[in-house]
Each structure stands twice: as C-alpha cells, then as structure tokens.
C-alpha cells in the first residue's frame, strides 16, 4: 500500500486544485480586485471642492470629527454600476447612515441630474482623479467604511447591491462603531 503513495500524488494535486478553483468560482470573489493599501490607516490628506456648496471644501479633517462610522463612496455619473448602486445608497442614507460621495473625474453639470436625489452628506469633486489614487482606488464604484477616528476600516469594491446592504455594509458599520 505504501508503494502506491507516489501514484496517488497526481490525484491529490488534482483534488486540491479542483477544490481551490471551485471555491474561487462559486464564492463570488472578484479575482481582479486590488485592495487599497490604505486599509487600517488614517484617511489620506486631501482637500476637495464640494458639489453642494460653492465655497465649501471636503477635507481629511471632516473624518476625524464624525460621531460614528461613515461611508465614503467613490462614484461617477459615467459609470454604469454606479447607477445600479445609487438606489441602495439612498436606502442606506434613509436608514441614517452618513455617506460622503467623491465624484471621480466627473462633470459637475452631469452631477446635477445624477444628484437630484442625493444620498450624500457632502460630495467631493475629484476632477483629476488624484485623490482616488491617494486612497488606493483602482476603479469605480468603491465604498470605504471609516470609523469615528478617521481610520479606513474596510473597502467594498464594486457596487453596493441590494444583498450587500444587509449582509456586508450594515455589519461593517456596526463593527467599525465598536
């Protein structure tokens, strides 16, 4: 029996590979997703003009004075998945979650239509996309959970879907609030 072991190695390798691939395929993990390296670090230094008010700015400081965890949602009016998640963000805002929006390489004119229903507490305008780079964002939409001390706790890549609200976002907010 012991002599048969070398012959079983290819079978063993096959089983391991199939299990690994099945898990990756069925779990819904996005293999192309690149995590931001800013996780568990403070919100990066930035200043952006704000959509809602002509002379206001959105800065790093705003995240150090929040009363609880907040969301930061990078989006764009030219991004199709962002349209899909817009309704979910409105739902979250109605539940009392504070969401800051950052419009990535967007046109304020187009935002006027997009934000007729505005889920955001404030919307920063990142016209050059440089602030997104500072946050380690590689695509839109991406949503970050920030705790009350201004530390980036989680990153949700891709749109916030209906099932994500209950299963991902709200639990993460609760966790960050502790």
């Amino acid at each position, binding site marked *: 029996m012991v002599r048969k072991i070398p012959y079983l190695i290819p079978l063993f390798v096959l089983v391991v590979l199939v299990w690994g691939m099945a898990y990756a395929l069925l779990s819904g993990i996005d293999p192309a997703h*690149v995590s*931001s390296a800013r996780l568990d670090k403070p919100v990066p230094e930035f200043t952006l003009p704000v959509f809602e008010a002509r002379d206001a700015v959105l800065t790093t400081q705003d995240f150090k004075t929040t009363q609880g965890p907040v969301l930061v949602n990078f989006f764009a009016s030219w991004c199709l998945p962002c349209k899909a998640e817009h309704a979910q963000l409105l739902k979250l805002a109605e539940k009392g979650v504070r969401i800051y929006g950052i419009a990535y*390489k967007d046109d304020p004119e187009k935002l006027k239509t997009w934000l007729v229903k505005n889920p955001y507490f404030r919307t920063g305008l990142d016209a050059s*996309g440089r602030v997104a*780079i500072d946050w380690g964002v*590689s*695509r839109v939409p991406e949503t970050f959970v920030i705790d009350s001390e201004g530390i980036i706790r989680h990153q949700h890549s891709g749109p916030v879907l209906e099932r994500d609200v209950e299963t991902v976002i709200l639990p993460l907010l609760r966790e960050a609030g502790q």
Partner: protein
Amino acid sequence: MTRIVLLLCLLVLTAPAFADDLDARAKNINQKLRCLVCQNESIDTSQADLAADLRQVVRERLEAGDSDEAVITYIHDRYGDFVLMRPPVKPATLLLWAGPAFIFLGGGFLLWRFHKKSQTQKKKPLTGAERALLRKILKEERR
C-alpha cells in the same frame, strides 16, 4: 589632432549614462509598476486611463526630486504588493518564488528514482523457468 576629436566624440557618447534623464528613469519605473486595470501589463504599455494617471504621478514625483525607490514606495503605499511587477520576497510569497524550483527538484528526483529502478531491473538475468518459457513462446512464434 584626429585622436583628440575621436576621444571627445567617445566622451560625448557616454553622456546618457551621466545625465539625470527623467524620461529614462520614468520609463524604467513605469515598467516596474503593474497596471491595475489591464493587470498583465505595466503602466508603461497600458492604454488604460488609470495607467496614464499613474505615469503622470511618477513623473511628478521624479520632478519633485524623489529617488526611484521613493517613487515606487509612493505607489506601493497606495496599492500594495500587487502593483509591483516583481512581487517582494516575503513569507506570503515564498510559495510563489520557491514553487517552480521545488517542483523541478521534486520531478527530477522522481525521474532519477525511476531511472535507477529500471537500471537494476535490467541487470537481473533470466531464471531457468523464465528461459524455458521464453523458448516456448519463440517456438510458437515461429509456427
């Protein structure tokens, strides 16, 4: 006189090695950074918007006086290990780096053992019973 001119020409040709050529440094760095959209390309060759943005960031950091390493660290601070075309050698990536050598050696070992086994088998002479059987088979063949 011609020798002096020749010498001067040769010296001029070595200039690229001495010049603090930002373009050359930028290209070198760009080739070491992965495009996060087209992930099998470097930002040097990728057509993606983000790649163009990152090339500009690299350019700006170089013009601000950063060293090559500082520029790469700047990008790495934002995107992590995956943005480097050459993954760093650390415990998490040890399997990636050591894997091929491991498989090569393992396979080579198995081949060697197989070769040795077939060698020893060749050296055993036929027993009397086996020789008789062989004769019988050959006789049947001839019919």
